[in-house]
């Protein structure tokens, strides 16, 4: 009994109890650990803000961009790359393949929302404009344009709508693994600039692998 009290006294004299000693050890260890993780992570971190984009050369138009965005209205929209468009009179992405006649009646339009507007430039050329608020990113027109047209339509993440989630929930589901991240200064993949341009930009992006 006396011995115990004696030990306690001597501990108090040296200014360190067993509890304080292990507490200090834990504090030091955790501080070092956190600092270590912080330094290593900071060296791997990118200074730029990175934004989600779809690689149009990988996209398979599965239609999940419409359903898997965290927002009620998907941040992905159909984009029309005008320099690639054939400006045809009869656009394969505008008219349904099943329509028996080639009139532009609403029943013959491919887009279920009627989000593609057809306007006469001068005969026989027409331009096709995407009504973005109507588009649901279902990818029907994109698929038809890729298969039977010039491939000027593609699905793309629109940054004025995208919340830039930590983990894009469409990217998590994308079967083609077509989602990439690009620095915010030049954050759009433009299809007509080609695959080489995208590859170069992905290589230059921090941590880029392609």
């Amino acid at each position, binding site marked *: *009994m006396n011995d*115990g*009290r004696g030990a*306690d006294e001597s*501990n108090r004299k040296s200014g360190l*109890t067993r509890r304080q000693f292990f*507490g200090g050890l*834990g*504090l030091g260890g*955790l501080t070092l650990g*956190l600092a270590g*993780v*912080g330094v*290593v*992570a*900071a060296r*791997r*971190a*990118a*200074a*730029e*803000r*990175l934004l989600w984009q779809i690689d149009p050369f990988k996209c398979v138009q599965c239609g999940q961009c419409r359903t898997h965005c*965290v*927002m*009620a209205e998907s941040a992905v929209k159909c*984009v029309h*790359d*005008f*320099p*690639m*468009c054939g*400006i*045809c*009179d*009869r656009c394969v992405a505008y008219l349904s393949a099943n329509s028996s006649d080639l009139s532009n009646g609403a029943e013959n339009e491919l887009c279920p929302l009627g989000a593609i507007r057809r306007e006469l*430039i*001068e005969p*026989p*050329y027409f*331009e096709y404009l995407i009504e973005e608020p109507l588009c649901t990113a279902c990818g029907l027109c994109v698929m038809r344009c890729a298969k039977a047209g010039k*491939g000027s339509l593609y699905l793309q993440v*629109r*940054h*004025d709508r*995208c*919340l*830039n*989630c*930590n*983990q894009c929930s469409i990217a*998590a589901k994308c079967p083609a693994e077509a989602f990439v991240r690009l620095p*915010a200064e030049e*954050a*759009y993949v433009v299809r007509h600039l*080609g*695959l080489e341009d995208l590859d170069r930009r992905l290589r230059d992006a921090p*941590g*880029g*692998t392609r």
Partner: protein
Amino acid sequence: MTFRQPIAIRRRSSAKAMLSALVGLLLLLTLFGGSAGAQAPLVLPAPEFETDYQRPELSHPLADGLWRDGLYVGALVLALAAAVWLVHWRRSRRGMAVLSIFSLAFFGFWLLGCICPIGSVQNIGLGLSDSSYILPWAAVAVFVLPLGVALVYGRVFCGGVCPLGAVQDVVLLRAVRVPEWLDKPLGLIPFAYLSLAVVLATTGGPFIICQYDPFIGLFRMSGEMWLIMSGLGLLLLGMFVARPYCRFLCPYGVLLGLCSSVTRRRVSTSPGQCVNCRLCEKACPMGAIRPATEERGRQT
């Protein structure tokens, strides 16, 4: 005019078809026979329009840019500083309540919850294991800051800054004390959740903490129905059990708890003035105040 589109598919004679097939085959052979650069040009030359028509420009609406991440991290630093001051110097519970309502509005409903310290665990895990992963700098900052503060001042992040904690605090009506036999085993779930999330993230799997965040759907007013319903369910439970997500699920809370367990500066009752009425023990909604124990060395 140099550029004309066929209006309908024309019929070709079979000889012509044969010829075109042959040419096509030759083209294919040259394409796949080694010359990689031989790709069809993507841009079609515009025809000579008679009107002065110009092709529309591609619109590329911009994102919020770097200031958004800067604003987030800056606000986090300020909120943490305010929480430390309110807890350790001001000792004001009302102040903390005001701060958490601000955090709920700002980090939750205005910044829509992303990126948060809870989810950043996965970014850090993936960033450390996979060098090709692009680690956002904001993820590093929001991971390190609350833990660093917890090492010195305890987990003030939970009390005043975390929007997920705040949304549960505002619905709390009357806290029922969870019995210890239930509290202890349920408290082990976060450890399992954290391990699973880190293992999945480091092996290139999904970010489950973000994917199954029960409250983010409320902040964004959209999301998967079952997740929003489970968030509402947690809030219903939270009316009687204080902060059920924080205590029995939150994976980041494990790390914060670890850091705050070794901190020197704690909130404590004043030992000299304590009359052992144990009112504080009963009042603590989290059941975090345990009965006083004698120090081992003096138990003689």
